[in-house]
């Protein structure tokens, strides 16, 4: 019954190895014998890395931390899919029971101009931090708040805001988009805050600044193919992109009206 099959798999890995940001990289093949079906994908890599170290080689670098699908550190392409074959699952939550004996697994880093490769499967996603710092917040200093229940928030709004806020910032949306667009990431934060009464005051500047920063970072345009949402481990909805477009439009209209008003 419970607690795993105890079965082992013999796999081949083709892994992107790249020493540093300025080096060129290449795929290298490794044998991965006797991988337990119950281990996680990253534990399988730990095992390979242990062997590499003992053979005086450098282990494969990849970002990871919580190993429970919440910190957003992990993420790379597995057989062409961001985070691998399972829906709503980060690499760290992916278990080897989802692979077949004898399979070859191809692993490469997120590919996007705005996410330069640091080493092997690690990329630099600090562009996301800069998008947030451009406006992804509500301007309230510590100590200013009214009682938390002073403003009731209808549950549907609160739930929708929460769903948008569950983005873990892993970058799978960018990596899976043929244009390397960051619309899903940016729009999730825009919607989260615009849906809440506290967030409405700054909604126009927020969306303008965040989108300007997103463009400045070199992310591509959105052509509404939807692969971002399909590959998102948290299932962030495309509705957020629609909402962000409405927010942008509303902001543009506001600006136009303000300009017209000035002219009177």
């Amino acid at each position, binding site marked *: 019954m419970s*607690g795993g099959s105890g079965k082992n798999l013999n796999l081949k890995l083709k892994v992107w190895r790249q020493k540093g940001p300025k080096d060129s990289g290449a795929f290298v093949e490794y044998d991965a014998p006797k991988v337990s079906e119950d281990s996680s994908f990253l534990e399988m890599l*730990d095992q390979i890395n242990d062997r590499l170290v003992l053979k005086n080689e450098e282990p494969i670098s990849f970002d990871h931390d919580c190993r429970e699908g919440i910190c957003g550190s992990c993420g790379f392409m597995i057989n062409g899919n961001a985070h691998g074959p399972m829906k709503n699952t980060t690499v760290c939550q992916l278990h080897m029971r989802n692979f077949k004996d004898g399979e070859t697994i191809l692993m490469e880093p997120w590919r996007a101009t705005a996410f330069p490769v640091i080493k092997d499967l690690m990329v630099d996603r600090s562009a996301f931090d800069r998008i947030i710092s451009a406006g992804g917040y509500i301007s309230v200093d510590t100590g200013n*708040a009214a009682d938390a229940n002073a403003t009731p928030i209808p549950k549907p709004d609160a739930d929708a805001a*929460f769903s948008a806020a569950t983005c873990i910032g892993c970058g799978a949306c960018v990596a899976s988009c043929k244009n390397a667009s960051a619309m899903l990431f940016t729009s999730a934060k825009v919607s989260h805050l615009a849906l809440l009464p*506290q967030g409405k005051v700054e909604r126009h500047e927020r969306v303008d600044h965040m989108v300007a920063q997103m463009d400045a970072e070199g992310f591509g345009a959105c052509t509404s193919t939807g692969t971002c949402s399909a590959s998102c481990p948290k299932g962030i909805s495309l509705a957020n992109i629609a909402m962000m477009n409405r927010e942008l439009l509303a902001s543009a209209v506001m600006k136009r009206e303000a300009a017209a008003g000035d002219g009177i």
Partner: protein
Amino acid sequence: MASILDSKIPGGPIESKWQNHKFDMKLVNPANKRKHTVIVVGTGLAGASAAASLGELGYKVKSFCVHESPRRAHSVAAQGGINAAKNYKNDGDSVYRLFYDTVKGGDFRAREANVFRLAQVSTQIIDHCVAQGVPLAREYGGLLSNRSFGGAQVSRTFYARGQTGQQLLLGAYSAMMRQVDKKQVDLYARREMLDLVVVNGKARGIIVRNLLTGAIESHEADAVVLATGGYSNVFFLSTNAMACAVTAGWKAHKRGAFFANPCFTQIHPTCIPVSGELQSKLTLMSESLRNDGRVWVPKEKGDKRHPSQIPDDERDYYLERVYPSFGNLAPRDVASRQAKYAVDSGRGVGPTGVAVYLDFRDAIARLGKPAIAEKYGNLFEMYEKITGENPYEIPMRMYPAPHYTMGGLWVDYDLQSTIPGLFVAGEANFSDHGANRLGASALMQGLADGYFVIPNTISNYIASTKIEPVATTNDAFKAAEDAVKTQIVRMMMIKGNRTVDSFHKELGRIMWDECGMGRSDAGLKKALELIPKLKDEFWNNVKITGEANYVNPELEKAGRVADFIELGELMCRDALERKESCGGHFREEYQNDGEAKRDDENFCHVAAWEYNGDKKPQTRHKEELTFENVHLATRSYK
């Protein structure tokens, strides 16, 4: 001998200590604030909230984290919730009750005044987080929702589905990023603090390794805040994220900060059991599950039947049996110990026999599957991903795992360590939870420290201390940089035969066996023989490949493991010296029928250890604890 530890608890009645103290504290005038720099190491709830608030006040803040982004700090993983004495449920909660529950829950080994302040500011935390847009769970009427957590009989826990930590952290992170945008906070990500710099007796800076380039950098400031999290990873397998380490705190300890109650660790009762040798970490299942799940094992030893085949009268719902008034919501230390007894008695379940059931059958029958899915859906999914079993149909299998560390750097009421100018916030300090932390209280404490305590006490320190200018060219910086570089070169040169992880796992096994849920004189002495040998072997036989001048995760881990080994030894000494059982510290010799037997006569104190250099063992100092409000009593949940 008078204690050299001055906790600086303000006078007056407990309700007004914090208020009065805030009024008595000196202020820095707004124009002067920007001339002062504060280093904040760590961007979890404690660090991000401190950096944001200090930035808002006008200080120049330098924020450091080992992560790629501040948002990835380990606080992000907290699931269950955050306590606050709002009494929105009108169920009898109050600041006083939260204070009382926390002191009692900590088995009377925390400082009353600190705990009271924590309970007082808890309500402001919720207000502030909601104002920031943190989407806490709400009822249909639009008001905030609450649930109950272990060790309390009121519903005071606020939550955001199973992602409370993530949502609170994103709130603090956004607030901090807003200050980054305003150029109040400079962000230094992927930097690991490897030493503290003390100049003329005051903390004046840190040495960090840039994890991308390997460069060793010096940073100076007028004060340093460590908010670097807990050290459960000393056990190798724990619920903590992989990068959680004691290194920052340990280096500060070696520079003069006392380490308090290192043996006070929390073993969380509901974690997914270990499944194999290659396992790298353990996954917590939120304590909130015990609101509806019932814990049981078969009454008979070695009963290998499928759980659905075991009728009710052949099941032992042992928490409900032993603790009728708290039942499945008994506090963590108590629930973990009972799980251990069940397994030790041969009644454990699952393939390894090292697990107990957490069963939702009755809750699903009572409330329906959709209601259970609404409350716990994501936790059930997480469980299924890991184990391949569906908890709507088969009871979850659970076993305790290391989770949280109540011990940490000693701090006074102002959260200042024994090194002037070094402040410690969040899980990294020893503070408020005594010998056992109640669920949903760590998030509360981290944010209390960062948003509401540190900004006040740092201002007071800066306003009342003569802080001379210092540059990173100062000898103390040079010496610390050299020490860091020497250690790195030394580790890289060993080129031995064992991986870093193999040492970490061996240490973890020693700690789990001898300094885990049960501790004994003989076991601790054995550990104290094994650990120095392990340390010796580490420094002669560890193998690190690659180079030190670029990304090298093996080198990073090696530094952390070296510090864990030293900490492990101190934990065992602390556990050996504390000849009583209290909270999570269970000395097998001191018990009443399996319940912890405290010794208030001899051990009603904090043990704070002073470092004496490599050659001499640490000295144990005492801070006596007095209980003027909650009377010392045997803790009972029966």
